[in-house]
């Protein structure tokens, strides 16, 4: 039958099912198809911490949301237009997020009494009018899948496992997605099991044909490619971009990359990824614990490597003492914190931004550490290169603050030219730098490991194997210049201030703030950091569309702040700081600039909702300026 084609500018789809239903894979494939089609997109995987929670239960529901459009978009979206629910629990767990009138596609096969009970449904929602305000489509997805793949002789259980591909095929038809990449992917993935491979490809195609022929759907949708700057693109998650950024930091500095790490959600994928790239001289050391991971990285840094450790909040707590040692010894060290919900074990698979004060202050003594935060999945690449640059140039541990949303979320990434990446000079010390009283000719005859560079205040980095520069460093206070142990009161005061001044000087390399204010007349500034960039940007657009004026700025460097941040803040009558914590950047900004910022804080383990944030911004604008939406 010929179907009507309807144009849309954007769609949000959420695939939801049991943890074992392959929803992450389904979402990922739909995303790849969408990326290669040329839409802009943003994704939000959401899965339980349990590997296989009891089947069919609410805690076992796993989902993947993808937002794609014919224009540039900033977030995975607040509320799906389409929900694919593979069982009653998936329907129940996600229904509250779905707007009225949205399309719901369910696999009616799984709506058995047993499964309905597990999801705490007294009666089937497919058989009463509880879903009457939605565009509900209940199909026997499992039965159709089993029927389609029966020629391959699989058991009913194995055959039914391809139902996620049937659903993907159906959705791919509905939105006119290119299918080649998924078929190529299935052929690669199941190359060693031809019957499983053929069943998945067949189920995928069957889903597509079902969409084409069923009378249930009379409309196929078209979302035109989004205009994007010329270049070559790929879709990328934050953890992958971050791993690539670390390899780029190694290549651009000429330092071998050493990763010391202990597996922890949601950071482990960086360890997995880097372990695949030994051909770039990358050493990955899976340590006995978090402390050994950072310790080995610091040991490697002493030997002249780019030492990196990757973890999440609980791991930072364990690494704190070693980071302090790095501060004292003034060696380059990259500490990656992929934040998750806390405190303690908290919400391992959910996102949060509540480690900012921990990485700023969670060490004994005055222990300044630079902090860099990426703002989107693809931006993790540039942020990692920047963190490596600061660590190497200033001889200091640097914390790179990602989060679960960035780590697992994805977006199109314009692949950079290697020639355009910054070159990082490790500038190893190779010669003596000080003249002792014993020098016969007034020439330098000894090495002082704490004699500093005038511009950066960085100390020389002399690696073992360099003749004549033998020296000892450690956690005890150092005498300025010579670096021997010193308990002198004035020296300690000087060294504490010097370490702080060195980190403050990093601001000299930080570009001025970029403030987005199309009107140039906004009275309210919204300031953010990290993964809230997307929701803040989307909220600002909604506010402006409603006829109000608002400025947006986003911080990449949280320590030190850009030099002009204070001036920027003072230009506005009100400043709002949205964060996925209870006001950590707010506290830092209030303390440093004495600006009475307004917090907007949610810690739900999920990204901020743009629409709710837009309402809060609108309220702030109206109380600040007496302006109201047109």
């Amino acid at each position, binding site marked *: 039958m010929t179907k009507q084609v309807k144009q849309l500018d954007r769609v949000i789809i959420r695939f939801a099912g049991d943890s074992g239903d392959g929803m992450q894979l389904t979402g990922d494939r739909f995303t790849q198809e969408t*990326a*290669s089609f*040329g839409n802009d997109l943003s994704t939000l995987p959401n899965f339980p911490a349990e590997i296989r929670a009891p089947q069919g239960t609410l805690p076992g529901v796993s989902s993947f949301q993808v937002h794609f459009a014919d224009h540039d978009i900033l977030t995975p979206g607040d509320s799906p237009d389409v929900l694919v629910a593979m069982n009653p629990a998936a329907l129940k767990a996600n229904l509250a997020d779905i707007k009225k009138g949205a399309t719901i596609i369910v696999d009616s096969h799984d709506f058995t009494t047993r499964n309905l009970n597990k999801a705490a449904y007294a009666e089937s929602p497919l058989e009463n009018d509880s879903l009457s305000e939605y565009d509900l489509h209940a199909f026997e997805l499992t039965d159709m899948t089993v029927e389609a793949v029966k020629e391959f002789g699989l058991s009913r259980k194995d055959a039914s496992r391809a139902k996620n591909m049937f659903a993907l095929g159906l959705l791919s038809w509905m939105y006119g997605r290119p299918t080649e*990449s998924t078929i190529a992917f299935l052929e690669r993935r199941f190359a060693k099991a031809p019957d499983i491979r053929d069943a998945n490809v067949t189920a995928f195609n069957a889903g597509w044909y079902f969409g084409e022929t069923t009378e249930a759907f009379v409309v196929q949708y078209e979302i035109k490619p989004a205009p*994007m700057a*010329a*270049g070559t*693109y*790929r879709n990328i998650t934050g953890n992958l971009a971050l791993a*690539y950024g670390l*390899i*780029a930091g190694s*290549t651009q500095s000429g330092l*071998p990359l*050493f990763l*010391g790490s202990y597996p922890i959600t949601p950071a482990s994928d960086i360890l997995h990824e880097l372990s695949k*790239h*030994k*051909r*770039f*001289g990358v*050493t990955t*050391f899976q*340590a*006995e*614990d978090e*402390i*050994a991971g950072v*310790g*080995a*990285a*610091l*040991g*490697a840094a*002493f*030997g*002249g*490597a780019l*030492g990196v450790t990757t973890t999440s909040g609980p791991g930072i707590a364990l690494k704190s*003492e*070693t980071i*302090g*040692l790095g501060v004292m*010894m003034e060696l380059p060290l990259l500490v990656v914190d992929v934040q998750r919900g806390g405190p303690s074990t908290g919400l391992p698979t959910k996102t949060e931004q509540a480690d900012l004060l921990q990485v700023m202050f969670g060490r004994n003594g005055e222990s300044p550490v630079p902090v860099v935060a990426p703002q989107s999945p693809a931006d993790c690449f540039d942020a990692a290169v920047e963190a490596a640059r600061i660590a190497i140039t200033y001889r200091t541990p640097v914390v790179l603050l990602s989060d679960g949303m960035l780590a697992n979320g994805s977006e199109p990434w314009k*692949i950079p030219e*290697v*020639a355009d990446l910054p070159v990082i000079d490790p500038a190893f010390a190779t010669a003596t730098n000080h003249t002792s009283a014993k020098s016969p000719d007034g020439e330098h005859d000894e090495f002082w490991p704490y004699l500093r560079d005038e511009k950066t205040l960085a100390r020389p980095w002399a690696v*073992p*194997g360099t*003749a*004549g*520069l*033998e*020296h*000892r*460093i*450690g*956690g*005890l206070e150092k005498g300025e210049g010579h670096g021997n*142990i010193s308990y002198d009161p004035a020296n300690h005061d000087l060294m504490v201030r010097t370490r702080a001044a060195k980190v403050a000087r990093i601001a000299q390399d930080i570009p001025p703030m970029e403030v987005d204010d199309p009107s140039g007349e906004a009275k309210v500034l919204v300031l953010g950091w990290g993964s809230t960039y997307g929701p803040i940007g989307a909220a600002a657009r909604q506010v402006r569309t409603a006829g109000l004026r608002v400025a947006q700025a986003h911080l990449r460097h949280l320590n030190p702040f850009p030099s002009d941040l204070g001036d920027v803040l003072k230009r506005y009558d009100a400043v709002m700081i949205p964060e996925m914590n209870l006001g950590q950047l707010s506290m830092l900004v209030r303390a440093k600039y004495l600006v009475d910022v307004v917090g907007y804080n949610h810690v739900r383990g999920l990204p901020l909702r743009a629409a709710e944030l837009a309402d809060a911004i609108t309220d702030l604008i109206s109380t600040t300026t007496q302006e109201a939406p047109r």
Partner: protein
Amino acid sequence: MTDTLPFPGLRGVPAADAPQNRKEFTSDQEVRWCPGCGDYAVLAAVQGFLPDLGLKRENIVFVSGIGCSSRFPYYLDTYGMHSIHGRAPAIATGLATTREDLSVWVVTGDGDALSIGGNHLIHALRRNVNMTILLFNNRIYGLTKGQYSPTSEPGKVTKSTPMGSVDNPFNPVSLALGAEATFVARTVDSDRKHLTEVLSAAAAHRGTSLVAIYQNCPIFNDDAFEAIKDNDTKADAIIPLRHGETIRFGSRGQLGVVRDPTTGGVRVAQDPDDADVLVHDAHAEDPTTAFAISRLTDAGVLRHAPIGIFRQVEAATYDDQAREQIVTASQGTGDRPAALAGLLSSGDTWTVV
């Protein structure tokens, strides 16, 4: 001098261009241990022995943790790091894995290695990273002024145990053998000759070498090792281990270590038949007998202790294998920026014109 040295443990570490002396290995820092501390004797032995290794001084690194003995690196004019409590084996693992050309030493104590850093110690030993660990065992906490340590005897009265310690102690040699360490030895601070001999063998060993050194603390645990140091008693107290030799000792040679069929272990026998006395085999693949011998050490006040090399076997090292994987993977990587460009644009891509 040749470019390479005959010891497998130091393969890859460049040889010195000219003979060296003790003075070159002595830093300009004033040594700050208490008068009479056993650490002085070990330092003197190490400063005297390092020139004999014939390595470039700049390719030697000493890493320590926290405690009296951990001040050691400051007094040697090599590269050094005085790190944090218990973590030296972890730090040295990163250094040794990335730098094959370095001779890496860890200096630690009974508190540093066996209490706060116990985890790192056993994992370094099982991985067999190429480094030599000197474990100064004075059976007391010195730097924190006299609390009992994880090797103190049960019942020990200290500042923190006025009614006597109720902790069961570790035997560091048993622990290391349990972790399947490939080189485990015990020596004594006051026996310069034996100390040097054991250190030489440890340095020559490829893999993690653990050298436990009985070291006297004259302030908080004086004479803890009197039985094995006193000329009148030591012949009966020291159970000497020499590979390939029978384990027979005593002032008149009247004692010997024999198998004990009732326990499956070993015991000290009076006037045993020569045929029954155990011949020490440090090279045995199976660490069971070495472990049994280590149990002849007194857990309480020390009256007997085996001294010497318990185990010395060849096994693949973590760092060699990690480096080999990189060498294998790197074949054909070619121009690095081009390879990076290839990596960044791998996977499904699309081009916008």
